């Protein structure tokens, strides 16, 4: 019988990605529901020493495939490795981060394993029989659908970074580290990696910010927002409209087609709060909204709502901080 909740733990240059840790958190909740194990699947080259961190984040078992073929992300090699380990162990659930790696690998695997895959889930729940309920936005976030995969195993889904909460790092937690060997078929891996180049963009990561000073259409001049962000040790983010207008770069966009954030304080200036935007920030600890329109939907998720001209408030904040 299919058993256990598996997490594909994405690493880049040997660094475990945050989304993998977030997934271990939700995997713990799902596994506890049916008294099963959380299993971390770690693929890469010279990555075995990271396995103990995955245990500390809640994995009961870490299955490691350490091979030079997995040094760079190559779809075929990664697919071969996951397929072999999954087939030998028959997990009930496999979760992936909805990154440019997870969203490449997971659909390939779903076809290879002939099972269902649900993309970009925002909520995962499990019943006592081990059936997974996967809720995801559809039609640009206008609708939420709960998807099930009743007759195929493993049940697979991807979850976007920042959607689930990171569990605590607990060195007391015990887990087993198991080295797996995979029988690779090199003849299938015909795509050649000529080079891999890291892009060191000088953009602050909005997903790591404690305070976000977020601007929308109602902010005509974004310069004071950058000054305010600097003064509160925060970062500037934005809604889609300013990105489409070319005023703010895409890496700062919050929402359905941008990033999901959960800062300690989210300051929404001149953002009306389209559902696509709310989907990306509603989990913030504390939300302050400033907008001239008293009926703006952003006020429905705010903890503090101020009806005022957002640009003027930003200028004033810049002055008094």
């Amino acid at each position, binding site marked *: 019988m299919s058993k256990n909740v598996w997490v594909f733990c994405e690493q880049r240059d040997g660094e475990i990605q945050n989304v993998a840790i977030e997934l271990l958190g939700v995997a713990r909740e799902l596994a506890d529901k049916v008294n099963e194990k959380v299993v971390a699947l770690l693929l890469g080259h010279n990555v075995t020493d990271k396995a103990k961190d995955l245990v500390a984040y809640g994995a009961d078992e870490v299955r490691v495939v350490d091979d030079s073929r997995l040094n760079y992300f190559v*779809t075929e090699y990664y697919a071969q490795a996951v397929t072999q380990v999954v087939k030998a162990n028959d997990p009930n659930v496999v979760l992936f981060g909805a990154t440019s790696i997870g969203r490449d690998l997971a659909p390939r695997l779903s076809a290879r394993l002939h099972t*269902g895959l649900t993309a970009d889930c925002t909520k995962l729940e499990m019943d006592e029989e081990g059936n997974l309920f996967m809720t995801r936005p559809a039609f*640009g976030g206008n609708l939420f659908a*709960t998807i099930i995969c009743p007759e195929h195993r493993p049940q697979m889904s991807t979850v976007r970074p920042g959607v689930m909460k990171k569990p605590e790092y607990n060195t007391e937690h015990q887990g087993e580290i198991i080295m797996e060997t995979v029988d690779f078929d090199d003849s299938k891996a015909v795509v050649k*990696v000529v080079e*891999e180049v890291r892009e060191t963009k000088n953009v602050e990561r909005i997903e790591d910010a404690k305070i976000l000073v977020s601007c929308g259409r109602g902010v005509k001049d974004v310069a004071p927002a950058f000054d305010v962000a600097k003064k509160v040790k925060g970062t500037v983010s934005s809604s889609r409209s300013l990105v489409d207008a070319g005023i703010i770069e895409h890496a700062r966009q919050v929402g359905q087609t941008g990033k999901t954030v959960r800062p300690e304080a989210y300051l929404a200036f001149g953002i009306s709060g389209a559902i696509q935007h709310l989907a990306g920030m509603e989990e913030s600890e504390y939300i302050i909204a400033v907008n001239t329109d008293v009926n703006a939907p952003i006020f429905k998720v*705010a903890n*503090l709502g101020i009806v005022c001209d957002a640009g003027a408030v930003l200028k004033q904040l810049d002055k008094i901080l």
Partner: protein
Amino acid sequence: MKIIVCIKQVPNTTEIKIDPVKNTLIRDGVPSIINPDDKTAIEVALRLKEKHGAEVVVLTMGPMQAEKALREALAMGADQAYLLSDRAFAGSDTLATSTIIAAAVKKLGADLVLCGRQAIDGDTAQVGPQIAEHLDIPQITYAAAVDYDEERETIIVKRQFEDRYQTLEAKGLCLITVLSTLGTPRYMNVWDMVAQDEKEIGIITFADLDLDKANIGLGGSPTKVKSTATKQFDKTIETVELDPEAAARTIVDALKARHLI
């Protein structure tokens, strides 16, 4: 070189509204468009055609109305168009859809398959890689640039990640999913608009393909929609109307109270 471009007709999601009583999408009056990433895939195919010579075939699955999307692709300069349409295909999830499209690609034959990265109605990005797996060919997703080296008969792709890129090379048949940032799709041109009128759109049905009913349609889909809901936001807070000075002061106080500044 024969290039098959897989496209999808989608409702323009930015114009979708929800019926608050029935909890359903109001599609009336919402225009259907070629999915933006897919339109870029057509553009990439046409550029390869201009540079290296190629036959560009567009393929879509959907109801008969999807013909409009194919006509637009022809008017952009595609050579042939096929519509996969059959009641047996209805209700397919991504895996079942990819099974059907893969069977059609196999039947039509191709040297290169192009798709958009993802469609704006579902945002799953799954069908491309699933087609590639069914065809047992390599996939390259998130393509930010696509080139072809005639001498070496090699496709060269810049594969984009969040924090890096890879330059990848592939020989032989492969499937590439492209990002819409790769290139702005051209407009339909008068010449091709007239010419497309003369062209027939090939209809491909279940009977034309080597398919098992157990793997397609609603019944052949591993995933099922259990329920749908609109998002309810239930926080009801008082909004206060303040002048900019008082507003700024209130914000600073609130952040200080939470020890954030």
